[in-house]
Every structure is written in C-alpha cells, then in structure tokens.
C-alpha cells in the first residue's frame, strides 16, 4: 500500500487542528544542499505537556510510525525543556521529515508521561533523561539508571545548570584524595 505523503505544512495544520491551543509554537524550517539544491525540512513544535502523549499517538495513527532518534534536554532556568526528535516518512527517497516536539516541564514538578507503550524504543533515552536532568517519567517500565553508575550520588543531575548540577563535583575534583 502506498502512503500519501503529507507536506510539512499539512502536518502542522493537522496537528494544530487536533490540539488547538495546546500547541504553543510551530516552525517549519527548510535547508538546501548539494548542486541540485534539493531541500529537506525540519518541523519544530512546542506543545503543552498534557497533550504531548496524545500528540505522539496522533502522529503514530494518522501520519506515520515515527522513528524516535533521541530526546535531548535543556535546563532553561525555571523550566526543563525536553525535545523529542522524531522523523516520519523514512523509506521514501528524499521524503523524510524531521518533527522535533519540545515540552516544557516546570522544575518544581518535572513530570512527563512515558511513551514506551507507543514506541518501546524510547526506553533508554527516557532513562537517560531521568538520570541526567532529574525529570520524572511517569509509567516508565524500567526506571533504573542507565549510564550513570549506581554509586553516583542521588539528586545530582549532570545536565542541570542550577545547584543540582555537577559544578561542585568538577570544582572539588580532588576532594576525594584528601580523605
């Protein structure tokens, strides 16, 4: 069965129609490359966390089964931003569209729903976000650490830029030797 491929504009419109004011911001960016100046597109979407999981489900059901590359994260001061890098329409020559969905989580309540039941391959990157940024992924099938060793102190998150970050560790690198 041949799928009809939606244009990036149509994808954004579909998502906006489905989630209305839950979508705070959308950007469609294209870049050209090579001699023939063929284009590729990135879609950036900022969505409210309540609608995030529904949005992933919507993309899976109505657009294409997305490939989740990774989740990256930013410490933005008051909030933690998670960016889910999806791509759809892979398997079509030059047809792939990257969809980057970002979600802001307030630091006092950094909860986000797990998407492992939709995309089981999200497990490792969700575990990484828990240990690196201190977010709480609700409903994650396995919440152990993945990269950070078990003897690393609790409550320190290497990607944070606030007091929970690793700065003290780096500054006092030789503390361990003094004992």
């Amino acid at each position, binding site marked *: 069965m041949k799928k009809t491929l939606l244009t990036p504009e149509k994808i954004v419109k579909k998502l906006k129609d489905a989630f209305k004011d839950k979508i705070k911001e959308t950007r469609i*960016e294209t*870049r*050209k*490359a*090579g*001699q*023939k100046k*063929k*284009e*590729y597109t*990135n879609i*950036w979407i900022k969505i409210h966390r309540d609608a995030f999981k529904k949005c992933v489900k919507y993309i899976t059901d109505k657009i294409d*089964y997305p*490939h*989740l*590359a*990774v989740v*990256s*994260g*930013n410490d933005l001061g008051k909030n933690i931003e998670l*960016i889910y*890098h999806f*791509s759809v*329409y*892979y*398997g*079509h*020559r*030059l*047809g*792939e569209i*990257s969809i*980057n969905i970002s979600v802001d989580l307030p630091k006092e309540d950094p909860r986000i729903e797990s998407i492992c039941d939709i*995309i*089981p*391959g*999200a*497990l*490792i*990157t969700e575990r990484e976000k828990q240990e690196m940024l201190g977010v709480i992924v609700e409903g994650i099938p396995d919440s152990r*650490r*993945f*990269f*950070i*060793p078990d003897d690393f102190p609790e409550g320190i998150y*290497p*990607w944070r830029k606030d007091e929970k970050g*690793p700065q003290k560790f780096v500054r006092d690198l030789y503390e361990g030797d003094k004992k």
Partner: protein
Amino acid sequence: MKTTYTLPIGPIHPALKEPVMFEFEIDGEKIVNVDVKAGQVHRGIEWIGTQRNPIQILYLAERICGICNISHPFAYCRAVEYIADVEVPEKAEYIRVIIAELERIHSHILWAGVAAHEVGFDSVLYLSWRLRENVMDLIEYLTGNRVTKAMFTIGGVRRDITKDQYPKIENTIKYYRENMGKLKHVFLDDKTFKLRCRDCGILTKDNALKLCAVGPTTRASGVKKDVRVDQAYSAYGDLDIDYITPDILTGEVKGDVYDRIVVRLLEVEQSLDLIEQCLDRMPTSGNIAVEEKIPKLLATLKKVEGEGIGRHEAPRGEVIHYVKLTGEEHPYTWKVRAPTYNNILPWIPMLLGEQIADIPIVAASTDPCLSCTNRVAIVENGKKNILTGEDLHRLSVEKTRRLMRK
C-alpha cells in the same frame, strides 16, 4: 523443576571494543532473559563540550569514536550550519561524501573481519583486514592521517581533493571491485558460515521499527531507513542511491546475522559506486570552506543564536547531534546520539532463545561501538566461576567446529 541461572557478561565483553554489561538468564544453554547496562565509559563528553567554543568542539567530536571520526564531526557541523544557516560550498559537500564513504568501506570491512573472528575463522579475519589496509592507505593519502582525519570544519572542509589525486582514488576503487567478489564468496557461500549465521539472532521488521533500530541492523530486517537516501543533505541529494536490504541479493529478508553480513558487504560496493559518482560530478574549482580564517569564523559563530539538529548516516546507522547556541562563547547544550545507543534494545529480541556460544556473533552483528572481551562470571548456586573472554571465544569456536564435523 528447571532452574535458571544468571550469566553476567561484561562490563568488558566478547563482541568488540569498549565495555558494556550484559546479564543473561540461562536455562541450560538457552538464553531466556537479557538485561543490558551501559555507561562504563561515560566520559561526560556533552558536558565537556559546553565548556568549549564551537570550533574546539570539532576536535572533541572527532574523538568520540575512533572509527566514526568523520561521522560525528559531520553531524555536528551540520547542526551548527543549520543554526547559522550556512550553505556549504558545493565542492566541499562532495569531498565530505567521499571521505564519509571511505570511512564506511573501512568500517564495514573491519567489522566483517571481527565477525569472522567471533565464529572462529581467524584466517578470514586476516584476509579482510588485509583488504582494509588499501582504503586506510588512501585515507592517509587524502587526509594525512589514518584515523583522526580532521577534515571537517564548520562551513566546509579543511583539505581539498585535487584532480591529480583522482588516479589513486580510482585505483583503490578498482582494487576493491576486483576483491569484493572474493570476500563475498568467503562470507556468503561458506557452508559453516551459513550454519552459524542463518536464522541466528533474528530481529523482526516489527521489532526493528518499534525499538527504533538504525543502520545496517534495521535495514537487514527490511526497514528502509537510511539518512543518505531519506534526506537531501550534503551531496547525497544529487547522487543515485537506494536503500540496501538483504533481499537484493538473496531474494528474502530474514533479519538474522547472515542478512546483516549481506547488507554490510553490499554497502561496501554501494560506497565504491557513490565515490565514483562524486568524482564524476564534483566541481573542479571553487571554495572548499565558507570561511577559512578560524578566528573570523569563530567570531561569527559566537553571535549566532538558535537550535538545530544535524544527522548523518554513519557506518553503524544514523548519528544525530542537537546543538543550542545562545550567542555566547560556549554552546548552551550539545547532545550527541551515536547509532549504538538505538541498537542496544534490539539486542534483547535477537539474543532471546539463542545459545551461550552464539552471544559473541549476535552481539557483534549490530557492530556495536561499545565493548570488548575480558571476563565472564557464571553465578550458579551462589558459587562464582569466572569465565575469561578467551573461554567464551573458545565456546564459540567449538560450536563452529562441531557444526563443521556434522
């Protein structure tokens, strides 16, 4: 009642370089459960990157991995160029593709050798690595180095490939065209190889999709996913390229270890073809970088704000870098995702139901950029027996010999 026991393998492990920890639940010889733990070599590279400026990160990115030392700078440069909206000169795009494809050739042949070693065919290991030397020589000739090639800069490349260098490239392509048939014959027509690799370590198409597998691992299961084909980046948009799946050669997709060998060997031939296309189409004149003076480039980059992703199809699969710049000396965030990250979960369905002696070849079949053999501890009734990496390798070799005698 049957009892199972736990078999921890790692943190130093049978497949390849670098550590990863496996915990197998074993029922007799059969694997009934698998758990993977990583992070033994977590070096905090992303954090180090946020203490450096965008040019310095290039050198760090290159040293993330010895084999993918083009793939990481490629993805990183693409991310920064995306943010700054830099259009790379056409000639540089072609040089990038040539170097990246040379890297794929050497990486896949290196892997083929390792795979042969894992099943106990060391003469094949030497044969493949002997073949690999030629492309390493060419890489050294073009870039000045065998491993860390330092070819990339933001907005272009650092060294040109000139017309008088073409004959050497063409000679190497000719050499591989003559010898790939032999390598394919050794790997794909051998009866014992087939016995060890056919229907072993199967990853179904459904699992490959759901577990977000990348690279040859996912293509061997029939998922058409290859950034080079999917996205018009660098010169790949101009070139004639298609997805490599095992049915091209064998007429069917099984998703086993054998299929993963097929895909990689076919991709070596595809890379030769791509390099030839590049030589044909590459402009002979023009700049190779938008700005050759590094301080000037850095000054521009320090003013740039925004976020972007850069992706590239490394030999092992898609590598993606996310960069956020805030108009300061250092990037605000730098996230690196290497292909093996996504190929960890697919190991689990591959290994379930297989035998202990199959662990090395199945684990190696995703071409993990992670780990290497040292010791294995078998915990049985509270007693601990340490199996060395050599023991595990011996088990694998013995299985091959057993099959050969049959």
